[in-house]
């Protein structure tokens, strides 16, 4: 678990959890988001992500879809079950796999297709933080 901008007195900055098995993506998203006024925590898989959710105040989760162990959709479902009803953004390059999942399970998830650029991710993060659990798409 890595915590960027760990200074606790800025607790009112929105907390974002970034989950991806690719270290590059994790670091670069954290790096980019920390240039904005976000508190970013990252995790390499669903298990680590669940531990972060238990220990930190997280306002939004940004997760990869295909990871070793539980996938992104399963992680979001597990988080919601554990009373972490936070907005979620799912990142994937495998759109066709994601589209095979039931509509019902995809309902409150914002999809961010890889490859995406910085503007897109910043826009989606800001949008989900401001309008809570209603995804754009």
């Amino acid at each position, binding site marked *: 678990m890595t915590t960027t901008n760990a200074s606790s007195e800025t607790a009112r900055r929105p907390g974002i959890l970034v989950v991806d098995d*690719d270290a*590059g993506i994790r670091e670069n998203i954290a790096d*980019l988001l920390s*240039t904005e006024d976000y508190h970013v925590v990252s995790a390499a898989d669903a298990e680590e992500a669940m531990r972060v959710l238990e220990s930190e105040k997280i306002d939004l989760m940004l997760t990869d879809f295909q990871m070793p162990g539980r996938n992104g959709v399963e992680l979001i479902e597990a988080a919601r079950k554990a009373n972490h009803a936070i907005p979620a953004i799912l990142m994937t390059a495998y759109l*066709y796999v994601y589209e*095979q999942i039931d509509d019902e399970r995809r309902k409150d998830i914002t999809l961010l297709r890889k*490859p*995406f650029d910085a503007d897109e991710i910043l826009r989606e993060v800001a949008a989900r933080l401001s309008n809570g659990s209603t995804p754009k798409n």
Partner: protein
Amino acid sequence: MTTTSAKNGKDDSPTAQADVNRPQERRPKFSGAAIVIWVVIAGLAILFSVFAVAIGFSAITQPRTFSLMSILLSIAFEAPLAAGVVALIWYSRILGRATVAREVATEALVQSEAKYRELIASAPDGIFVLDEQAKVLDVNGAGEKLFGRSRGDIVGRSFMEFVPEERLSSARAYLADRLEGLRAMELYEATFTAADGKPVHVQLRSQVVRPAGEGLYVVYIVRDVTAQREALRNLVETERWASMGRLASFVAHEINTPLTNISLLTASISRRVTDPEVQERLKKITAQGRIAASITGELLKFSRPGAINPVDTNLVEVIHAAMEQTDGFRKPGVELRDETGGRPVLCTIDPMRIQEVFVNLLKNAYEATPTGRVKVRLEDLGSLVAVSISDTGSGIPPEVQARLFEAFFTTKKKGEGTGLGLAISRNFVASHGGDITVTSEPGRGSTFTVVLPKQAPESNSSA
């Protein structure tokens, strides 16, 4: 079982049933030899009788002169005659039986020959009998069908007349080798030209036959493998595209992650530096990243055309949206003529994908047309609808036309196209159960015609 066998004097019942439809069997005719024998028998019998009467008469009228010597002389005279008659009757019976046996044998031979002729005639493979000079002596029904010609059009001609020019030397060499006893086990692959000019691909085996006392002949047994070859070719082609699709999909997905990283890092740097020169170069990196992303996007569309999502759509609106989207590609001297008609044409199609097809075709038309006209025409054909996009541009040479819809085939300069636009368009149209065709005249322009069923087939999940 019929009763005819009783009449023909034969009681060989096993074949009797097979004979019902054949001309009635004849009794064996009297041969010349039999007639001569019977004439001799009759002559001897008459002679015997005449002498017997004469001896009897003489014995009654002149009993005194009829001595023991006379009796012995009479017996000596009559006995050989009687023996001759008996022997000849015996011989004639033997001769008669032999004639019957020969007749039966001949009949059996005729039947057997008919049976073998029938077997050859009904053989599923073409059978050609050739002489040493490759002249066709005989052909069966399958052979006629193979060449699409009648027997009269094949027999008497040289077999080589049906071999295409480029295969002639190979076909001649094969026959020559066979006549020398070589290549006996070879399954020779050959191509012939049917009467309609179409090539017929065959596998051929042959047998050289050398009957005693006659000239030799060669039997060609020819199997049509055109359909199998076509099926195999299609299978190989399908497999080739499928593996290319898997490769494209793998490459696209794997490149997406580093592309995302490049884009994120670029943005991160851009937020940390103020130097306008650095900013300018970062913008260039971002632009290049977008190009790379659009290429991986194309690759994914090609490799996974996916399920279509048909909804009730006014096709005319889709065409108009594609026209608007591509208007920036239209050069100043080029007129766009809209012949889609005013009325809506309702179809159940995937509007996103079909719009992309028209966008592709319009972009290509504009690129090929520096001045002149691009025309979009819609024809309502009932259950089908045809949309043609014609330009007055440079046209497409035939060799390019042949490969136009092939993936990664492009005539554009490096960096201007992936060569996937038309391949993707064709996939999209095909998944709607439609087709794209092209006609073109170099120097005068091209017309691409999209024919779509108004009701797209039920989507069969992502392919």
